[in-house]
């Protein structure tokens, strides 16, 4: 794995914003250091920040610009603490301990400084809490409460001064609420390598802006919404369609169906005061019906469908490479479920679009199936169907508005709703989600598998694909190779994972694929190389490696997800997000997978029925190409 670690070294964050770890080791240093914080001794490894040391003994130091996913900034100064022997206060988040010291976290000087800093922020923040989407979930608001702010010492912003940028389908920017913590900048440039937002100008005119201050829709934004998840205030938020969704529900002529992705159910409980990691899948079904949705479907159904389509596509590419040996073969094949990732590659690597699977994302497949197959089956005019997609994602809002996503003859998916927005709708309807009775999804797409569920976590698509490919090709149960069919090597939060699997033997071609393959002999003895990548910053490293002919160029299949952690860390998920919260959500997702009776996509009876009754030419056939596959737009990097 040393190769991968080298890839990880290429952070472009300014030195000042990189965490400064003083490496342990060498003669005499590297030992633990004892520091005293508010009279309490704590022993920490050299290089630990004051903030981390305080956390260890339960002393809370307030923070704003600090975020566990991001490099150090040390700009808001709210975490200032006093250190004996130093004239100035130190930023606890940015100060690495390298010698014994006495630290005080709440002296008069510290309290006055924090209060002043808070007062300054409040004076430049359009603090219209009632009308703010982050009311009750705002870090600035909480700190104001914590520090007993009872008046605006340095005045307040009476009228908004910046125009709100509503140009994007996904992200809305309201700089009147920005407190310049630069978490979005570090997210966008360092974590995601998108480079849409930066600090512009100098002095009191400094603001967070885009290239040449253009609207978000006119610059390179992949809509991943990671900036939203890390914004402490309401300066960044998702484009909220709840009013339109209510209007559709209220319209008796409309048949409103909702599909729910796996990641929101593992997280929505957080919006109702539950600990992260408590799944709400079946409570949510009840709640959605109560709220007025006519049908509640499981996106996992089309996740399974995606596996069949994308898996077949992969096998076809492999056959082309190993047997037919003609024409250009585009390997590794890249997954295409993550709309943020799709927009990323369209902008930054337009010459690699052929490597993308042409399969639509599960959301869009579902939309197309609902407005065709389902409409036929229930004899509903598709123009009267409104499809809503509950997603952990802000980029899904952009995706459903792509002009090419109208293969049913209508807009395949009408509205993308985030986890946060659904929680808001349920609260508005007086529905206390955790107290709902459990109920199942609606037919005919009610059956889902564990493979569909794990799409919500990084590595999930790969694991689902491997489960299916192994069984279809090798002809033995996955359980014989991996305990409980849990393919552990592709799980976990490492940014880039690389796995090799040798196909020892092959079985007969299953019925569903007989039209496409005569035998699997060409795969016998082949070592399949796959990789799992999450966060577009990591994607960049892997794509550059492929371009340079590195080890990832040898891969056959690579899963890419735009968001760190995969969908469970999506830009539409409850705020805050931290590595711990994402791990808890992943645990819920994998637990749900284990609970399913059927855990492999190709065993999903509803999917098989769809192929018998509707997509009769089988996977990657003509009809599925029309409805379930798409094409991509080389957008390039140039900003007009």
């Amino acid at each position: 794995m040393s190769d991968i670690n080298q890839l990880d070294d290429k952070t472009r964050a300014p030195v000042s914003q990189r965490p400064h770890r003083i490496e342990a080791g060498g003669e005499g240093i590297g030992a633990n250091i004892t520091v005293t914080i508010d009279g309490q001794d704590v022993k920490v490894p050299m290089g630990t920040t004051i903030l981390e040391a305080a956390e260890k003994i339960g002393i809370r130091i307030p923070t704003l610009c600090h975020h566990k996913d991001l490099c150090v900034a040390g700009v808001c100064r709210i975490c200032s603490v006093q250190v004996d022997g130093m004239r100035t206060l130190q930023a606890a988040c940015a100060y690495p301990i390298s010698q014994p010291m006495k630290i005080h976290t709440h002296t008069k000087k510290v309290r006055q400084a924090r209060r002043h800093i808070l007062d300054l922020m409040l004076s430049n923040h359009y603090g219209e809490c009632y009308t703010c989407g982050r009311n009750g979930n705002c870090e600035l608001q909480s700190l104001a409460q914590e520090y007993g702010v009872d008046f605006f010492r340095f005045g307040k912003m009476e009228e908004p001064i910046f125009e709100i940028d509503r140009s994007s389908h996904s992200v809305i920017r309201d700089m009147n609420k920005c407190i310049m913590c630069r978490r979005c900048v570090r997210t966008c440039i360092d974590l995601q390598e998108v480079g849409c937002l930066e600090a512009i100008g100098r002095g009191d005119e400094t603001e967070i802006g885009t290239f040449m201050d253009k609207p978000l829709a006119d610059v390179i934004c992949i809509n991943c919404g990671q900036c939203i998840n890390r914004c402490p205030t309401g300066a960044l938020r998702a484009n909220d369609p709840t009013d339109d969704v209510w209007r559709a529900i209220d319209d008796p002529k409309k048949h409103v169906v909702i599909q729910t992705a796996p990641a929101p159910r593992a997280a929505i409980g957080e919006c109702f005061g539950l600990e992260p990691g408590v799944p709400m899948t079946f409570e949510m079904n009840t709640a959605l019906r109560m709220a007025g949705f006519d049908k509640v479907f499981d996106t996992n159904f089309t996740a399974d469908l995606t596996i069949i389509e994308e898996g077949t596509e992969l096998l076809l590419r492999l056959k082309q490479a190993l047997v037919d040996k003609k024409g250009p073969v585009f390997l590794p094949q890249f997954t295409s479920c993550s709309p943020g990732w799709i927009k990323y590659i369209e902008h930054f690597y337009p010459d690699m679009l052929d490597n993308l699977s042409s399969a639509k994302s599960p959301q869009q497949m579902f939309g197309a199936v609902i407005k065709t197959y389902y409409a036929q089956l229930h004899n509903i005019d598709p123009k009267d169907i409104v499809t809503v997609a509950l997603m952990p994602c802000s980029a899904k809002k952009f995706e459903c508005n792509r002009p090419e996503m109208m293969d049913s003859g209508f807009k395949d998916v009408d509205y993308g709703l985030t986890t946060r927005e659904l929680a808001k709708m349920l609260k508005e309807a007086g529905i206390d989600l955790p107290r709902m009775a459990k109920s199942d999804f609606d037919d005919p797409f009610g059956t889902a598998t564990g493979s569909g569920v794990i799409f919500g976590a990084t590595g999930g698509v790969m694991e689902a694909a491997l489960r299916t490919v192994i069984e279809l090709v090798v002809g033995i149960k996955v359980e014989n190779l991996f305990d409980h069919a849990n393919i552990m090597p592709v799980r976990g939060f490492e940014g880039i994972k690389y796995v090799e699997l040798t196909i020892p033997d092959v079985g007969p071609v299953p019925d569903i694929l007989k039209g496409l393959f005569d035998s699997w002999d060409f795969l016998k003895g082949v070592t399949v190389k796959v990789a799992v990548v999450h966060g577009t910053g990591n994607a960049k490293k892997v794509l550059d490696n492929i371009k340079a002919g590195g080890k990832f160029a040898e891969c056959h299949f690579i899963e890419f997800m735009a968001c760190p952690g995969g969908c469970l860390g999506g830009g539409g998920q409850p705020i805050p997000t931290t590595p711990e919260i994402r791990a808890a959500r992943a645990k819920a997702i994998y637990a749900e997978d284990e609970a399913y009776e059927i855990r492999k996509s190709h065993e999903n009876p509803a999917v098989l029925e769809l192929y018998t009754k509707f997509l009769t030419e089988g996977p990657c056939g003509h009809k599925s190409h029309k409805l379930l596959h798409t094409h991509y737009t080389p957008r390039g990097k140039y900003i007009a």
Partner: protein
Amino acid sequence: MLVTEQERLRDDIASWAQDIGSDRSALIPILQEIQGKYGHISDFAMQIVADKLGIHPVEVYSVVSFYSFLEFKPAGRFVIRLCRTIACDMLGKDKVATQLENDLGIEFGETTPDGKFTLEWANCMGMCDQGPALLVNDRVFTRVTPDKVTQILEACRKAFGIYALGSIGEGHL
């Protein structure tokens, strides 16, 4: 912008990157070259530079917007920067400022419609003992009086090329 000019810019940037380097520390020197030759750093130029150095255009814009001697808007042939810091203020910079505005018909921060002059404020330029001081492009003028403003502007108008200023008073050096 004409395609040919874009090509020229692209070639220039490539050759500067060749000379100066294509790592991030070459950014500001390359931007200064662009500004020196083209008068300002256009959004197209920023994108070419970003591409060359493997960074994002917004990072280049961020840097350009930070430094007061880097311009992303087209600037005049002659950029006049009048020092407004206290020493020059005490020596009468207000009168000089008014005269500059009157003679050029523009305010600070603006460029004349003919594209010849841009008027800017500058913070202390290290001529505190000989103020009021102003810079015309790279060249410094000290002990400027309203009367001298007229002479400086006339010299600029008479000829393109900063050397035309040689005949005027006591520019430093």
